[in-house]
């Protein structure tokens, strides 16, 4: 009886990795618990332990192989004396479905040419480089820290561990422990401390491992960071960035999967931004760090590993308060932010195959909202769909609907449709989790509905 050893997932969002090294050779006897191999992702290196006893009969995936999908058979462990040369290797199992919850399946229709050419950044025409969102965020911090001694990064695991999500990789090495600071697990305390440091003339970047934990610090975010400038008649500026993963992760249930965009968007005195692409991540984070106000910077864990073309220029920034038209269209405006922009673009592609030309707006900034770009688009398309992971009640979609009525009511040919996360705490089970989040079908259905199709 032989057992297949499968490529393991090291984190809820891992889909593939590198088989860095085999620590056992074919023919070696292995005990349960023996380390068989080292697996690497862009975030971490982990050891793969044997769960069965026997002989490492066959290594299927050689060491050094990159892009090995989770659940791919990588070796066979057989009983003593068994011949495994004839064992048939089964097809790789599908990647974990959890990911599909946030990243819908590709469109099943025939690919067609986009109905309109994608808009390129009007300001930037220089060289680009392919970076993950993770690298783009790190580069933004590093570049800004090089130019201003008063900028420092603090948070849980940001220094020695290189970031819980490896966003701060290399920063401790370059900037040292004075400027890259591991905090105790003490959100309320270090958030208040960060605000005080900003009042004291520094420019802190405070990383929340995820924004779920920032709720412990809500008082300082709202009462101390956002309101003090006003309460001091303009004396007490608070130049600080609060950044970290926001929104639905995968398979971590209700307390670790929530979008906080509408919570912070409610508060005068804050700026709230939420990048989608690598370009957004780098350009917006640089703007946030340079901004003299408190900026809530909502990242997305599932986007961290995705690669984009990013302007290769340390002067490149993305202005806060300006949305980006990711794709031009004429029939319906789909408005979104963060990871849902990717879904909106997929939906636009699918709609194009049915003859519907969708314009996709990437909000980039949640507060201030770029009302001009939204309204201009609606005046052209006369139809609006909002897409967000957050709950529907008092959500960003609700705000878009209100803005639409206030500024473009006479241009509307259909009521605004909101595609939101379902109005429930995030469930754990894969199928329920997938049912909560917006997906391609929900967006396409909503877009067709406002087009009366």
């Amino acid at each position, binding site marked *: 009886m032989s057992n297949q050893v499968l490529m393991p997932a090291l984190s809820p969002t891992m889909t593939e990795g590198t088989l860095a090294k085999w620590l056992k050779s074919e023919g070696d006897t292995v005990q349960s618990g023996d380390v068989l191999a080292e697996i690497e992702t862009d975030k971490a290196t982990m050891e793969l332990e044997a769960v069965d006893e026997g002989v490492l009969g066959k290594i299927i995936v050689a060491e050094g192989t990159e892009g090995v999908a989770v659940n791919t058979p990588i070796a066979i462990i057989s009983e003593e004396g068994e011949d495994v040369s004839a064992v048939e290797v089964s097809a790789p199992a599908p990647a974990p479905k959890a990911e599909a919850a946030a990243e819908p399946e590709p469109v099943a229709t025939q690919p067609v040419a986009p109905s309109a050419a994608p808009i390129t950044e009007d300001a930037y025409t220089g060289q680009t480089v392919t970076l993950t969102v993770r690298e783009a965020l790190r580069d933004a911090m590093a570049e800004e820290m090089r130019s201003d001694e008063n900028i420092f990064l603090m948070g849980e695991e940001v220094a020695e561990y290189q970031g819980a999500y490896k966003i701060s990789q290399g920063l401790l090495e370059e900037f040292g422990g004075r400027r890259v600071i591991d905090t105790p697990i003490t959100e309320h*305390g270090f958030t208040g401390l960060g605000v005080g440091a900003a*009042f*004291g003339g520094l420019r802190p970047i405070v990383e929340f491992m995820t924004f779920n934990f920032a709720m412990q610090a809500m008082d300082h975010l709202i009462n*101390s960071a956002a309101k003090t400038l006003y309460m001091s008649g303009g004396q007490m500026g608070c130049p600080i960035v609060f950044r970290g993963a926001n929104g639905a992760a995968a398979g971590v249930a209700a307390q670790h999967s929530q979008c906080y965009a509408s919570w912070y968007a409610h508060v005068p005195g804050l700026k709230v931004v939420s990048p989608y692409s690598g370009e957004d991540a780098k350009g917006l984070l640089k703007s946030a760090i340079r901004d003299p106000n408190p900026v809530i910077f909502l990242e997305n864990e599932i986007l961290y590993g995705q690669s984009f073309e990013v302007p290769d220029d340390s002067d490149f920034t993305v202005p806060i308060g300006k949305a980006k038209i990711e794709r031009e269209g004429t029939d319906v405006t789909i408005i979104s932010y963060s990871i849902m922009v990717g879904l909106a673009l997929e939906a636009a592609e699918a709609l194009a195959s049915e003859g519907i030309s969708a314009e996709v707006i990437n909000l980039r900034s949640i507060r201030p909202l770029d009302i001009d770009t939204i309204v201009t688009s609606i005046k052209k398309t006369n139809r609006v769909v909002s897409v967000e992971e957050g709950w529907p009640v008092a959500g960003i979609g609700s705000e878009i609907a209100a803005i639409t009525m206030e500024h473009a009511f006479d241009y509307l040919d259909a009521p605004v449709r909101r595609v939101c996360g379902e109005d429930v705490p995030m469930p754990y089970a894969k199928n329920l989790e997938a049912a909560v989040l917006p997906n391609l079908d929900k967006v396409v259905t909503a877009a067709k509905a406002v087009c009366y199709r």
Partner: protein
Amino acid sequence: MTKETKKRKSTKKSAAKSAANPEDILKYYKDMLLIRRFEEKAGQLYGMGLIQGFCHLYIGQEAVVVGMQAAANNEVDTVITSYRDHGHMLASDMDPKGVMAELTGRSGGYSKGKGGSMHMFSREKNFFGGHGIVGAQVPIGTGLGFAHKYKEDGGVCMAYFGDGASNQGQVFESFNMAALWKLPVVYVIENNRYGMGTSVSRASAVKELYSRGAAFGIPGDSVDGMDVLAVKEAGEKALEHARSGKGPYILGMQTYRYRGHSMSDPAKYRSREEVSKVRSERDPIDRARQYVLDAKATDEDGLKQIDGDVKAIVSDAADFSQQSPEPELSELYTDILIEA
């Protein structure tokens, strides 16, 4: 109680023999008197409906902030406190007119009328508020200490809070980080014996609040907060400790507030006798007055002159606070964000 805390507590008895010169003693007296008269006037204006909302008076606690400011290096040290903040502002040399005009919600106030009694600031005077949420100033003050250390400017933050705030979780989070990173912060616990209407013995498992840092290795002293010279002496020791890179220090000031928690407090939780006993036996201004006379810093006539001067300052502040115009409606939408 450990030997160590016993030993620390003994500093309380050494009360106030630090030889301040007559001129300084006179200044402390005058500063304390200004706070008292200012607060009495604020209470009066509140009664007239000129000050609205919450108004927390500092009467009875004057020696704490005046003694600490006497010990501090006012060029670099920073001050942060709670909503019972008028005394701290006056002791930080902020203009009484600007403070009173903020209480009356006028454009001439330190926050242009947008902050009120609990939210005033002066970067120029290193006064960082004035914070309305109980305990929130403690991590912020710890952050000011962090900035002092980061910038190596030699400053120390004095973070004031009450016995009530000392039970907030964020205070302990701050203690931990300040001790861990050896931040230059002096935590001044103004134990006025009541967190609103709840006495310390009903709110704190351990009444010796100066020992609250023991779990973090932060030294602490109990101080007679009704004696300005005792406060000054304790403050000098604590500030020196923090300034020299040894990390935070806690001072547990034994003080008392004569008035209610805020203006609307009927103070049913304590007896009239308790208040009058403190007033007659421990009043910090009476004590300072005696120091003045003992040091022959001035005579009765000189004291009368000071009383008159202080009354005039307060009277001018009250006049200004009523003459200063209300903020323009156009101020509604200013100071929300700084132009990037």
